[in-house]
């Protein structure tokens, strides 16, 4: 009776054999594999990465591609599950034979893939994950970080906050890696820059906490001057809603990384709280340069919406890939990696450079505060202060020390 079980097993085996022979390779293309989360709350960021990337690729291909080769890309939805993400990355590299990988917003997936590409020697452009292990402790030759990480966001914020008069700080946030990393990043650096600050208390809540009212109550009772709120994802909106509902935003100023982001503010419309401090790498309305205006116009034409931060990451990644190959002179991965080290391109936000020592992109950071704007039906960032990449990214020595550990 069990014999038929074997038949079934065999048919599965044969099926996978068939797949091997059906493989085909297109010779003159550069294949980019994108593994990212296209399901769940993170999608609000990742879709922009993809669309930004597409926009740039279409432009590049329209101009005849890179050294006569077109860029092709395939995407995989890892649904915020690291094991699936890793399997997909392996599929892209081993089966689809992609030349380059990019993604993801999930730090766990990114770290898992990073370990894999190190062995496979495939360049991997990280487009949203914020863990500082990615270029730090776990960094290697084939990884390129196209965004800021938690440590950097902390430093940038500390620089801006040190100029503010606040002394008594309260720290609160999501009780997981991202939250703690942001909070520590801000606090440790702020302490260094302005030794007079003092921490009056801390609060940590679970990820995905729906109601922040009890925590806000607790914080209000302590009457701090300023609150550092280290939340991410849907917690951003949830906290702002609670801050508005309890009147916190009118009583005590607070800071959230990416609070001024369009992704956070647009869904809330005019109901978002005013006076919230935030840091972000990009706004479609700032910097108000011709390059940025052109980029926004292109993006709007293609997708009928304003570009957000992710669009910039995706767009630049494509630009770097194209320029890198051009500089390398041929389609060779090792040459590409070497070419990218220390390379700079013209982006919508000005000239940007990938640092040679740790493959970190040096992006400017904009510190601003939410305000109503008659031009839009959502809040925007005002009083923007720009902090240059070189000022807030940890030095090469620091990073390399981490890697040796």
């Amino acid at each position: 009776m069990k014999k038929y079980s074997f038949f079934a097993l065999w048919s599965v085996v044969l099926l996978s054999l068939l797949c091997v022979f059906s493989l085909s390779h297109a010779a003159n293309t550069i294949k980019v594999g994108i593994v990212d989360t296209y399901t769940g709350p993170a999608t609000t960021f990742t879709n922009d990465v993809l669309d930004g990337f597409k926009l740039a690729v279409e432009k590049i291909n329209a101009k005849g591609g890179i050294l006569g080769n077109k860029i092709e890309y395939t995407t995989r939805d890892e649904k915020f599950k690291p094991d699936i993400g890793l399997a997909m990355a392996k599929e892209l590299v081993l089966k689809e034979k992609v030349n380059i990988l990019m993604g993801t917003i999930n730090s766990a997936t990114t770290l898992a893939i990073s370990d894999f590409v190190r062995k496979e020697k495939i360049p991997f452009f990280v487009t949203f994950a914020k863990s500082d292990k990615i270029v730090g402790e776990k960094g290697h030759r084939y990884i390129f970080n196209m965004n800021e990480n938690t440590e950097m966001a902390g430093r940038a914020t500390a620089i801006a906050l040190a100029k503010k008069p606040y002394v008594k700080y309260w720290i609160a946030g999501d009780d997981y890696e991202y939250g703690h990393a942001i909070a520590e990043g801000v606090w440790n650096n702020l302490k260094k820059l302005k030794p007079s600050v003092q921490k009056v208390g801390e609060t940590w809540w679970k990820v995905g906490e729906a109601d922040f009212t009890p925590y806000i109550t607790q914080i209000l009772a302590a009457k701090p001057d300023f609150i550092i709120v280290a939340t991410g994802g849907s917690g951003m909106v949830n906290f702002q809603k609670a801050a508005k509902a309890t009147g916190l935003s009118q009583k005590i100023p607070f800071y959230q990384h990416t609070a001024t982001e369009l992704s956070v503010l647009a869904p809330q419309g005019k109901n978002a709280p005013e006076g919230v401090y935030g840091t972000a790498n990009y706004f479609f309305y700032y910097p108000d340069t011709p390059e940025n205006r052109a980029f926004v116009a292109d993006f709007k034409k293609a997708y009928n919406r304003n570009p957000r931060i992710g669009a910039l990451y995706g767009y630049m990644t494509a630009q770097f890939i194209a320029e890198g190959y051009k500089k390398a002179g041929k389609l060779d991965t090792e040459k590409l990696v070497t070419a990218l080290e220390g390379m700079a391109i013209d982006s919508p936000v000005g000239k940007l450079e990938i640092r040679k020592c740790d493959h970190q992109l040096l992006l400017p950071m904009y510190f601003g505060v939410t305000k109503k704007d008659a031009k839009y039906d959502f809040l925007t960032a005002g009083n923007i202060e720009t902090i240059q990449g070189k000022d807030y990214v940890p030095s090469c020595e620091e990073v390399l020390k981490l890697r040796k550990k």
Partner: protein
Amino acid sequence: MESIFSFVSPGIFSQILVGLSRTVILFIVSSGLSLILGVLRIPNVAHGSLYMIGAFMAYTVAHLFGGGNMGFWMALVLAPLGVAALSFVAERSLFQFLYEREHLMLLLLTFAMSLVFGDLVKLVWGAEYRSVPVPQVFQGYMNLFGGLPFPIYSFFLLVMGPIIAILLWLLTNKTKIGKISRAAAVDREMVGAVGINVSWVFAIVFVIGCLLAGLGGVLVAPTVSVTLGMDHTLIIEAFLIVIMGGLGNVWGALLGALIFGLTQSLGILVWPKFGIVFPYLAVVVVLIFRPTGLLKSTW
């Protein structure tokens, strides 16, 4: 009043109140689940998806009506009805053929449905997160004892809880359909043998249960961001609540929701880092001492 707060710090008290307002959502959703479990014997994993769909529908309706007060009230009425209509289609086209199947099969089937629903939501509403504004009447906060702010919307939830509970009580004890469903929970064959078309009774009970899921989704929408995946955590919590309270017992669902909501919010005070584990521990403790739940199960 003052004397109470000399023992209990305002922080704890406010924590309890917030726990209670969360309880309301949990209760509404899990009472629907319990109703379906008790009468139809379906462990409906897709219940969480309906809750999520309710929230998304609330978003759509609220925006259709301009996002103000009107939008909210219309959402409160229309979105649960939309969920009910959807569940009606699902019941007539799928579930009515499956009542005699084993529970495990039904569990898997509904899990499959939840996967399908998840992707359908993605198709219809896209994958981005949505925000439903708190209606103007409930915006802002009131100051409780010692100047602690308590959002008016949470207060509204606290009022809604008992109203739903009373309506449910009236439905199950005072209406014919409620009585029939209580009888059918125990002996569906005999209910058929006294001239009642059990199939339609089941359809109605299923729709009512799902309507509650949708209602929960609408009520929670203004306090959180409406996202894909909001069904995953909720459905497990709802199941645990139902199991803790006693399968099929609507009051068990209330009791379970209270325990769950309060251990969760107070657990955060006791041990913030592992606050998440307290409700689960509560379930374990309850089931060790009362293996079939706190109140009488209809199983």
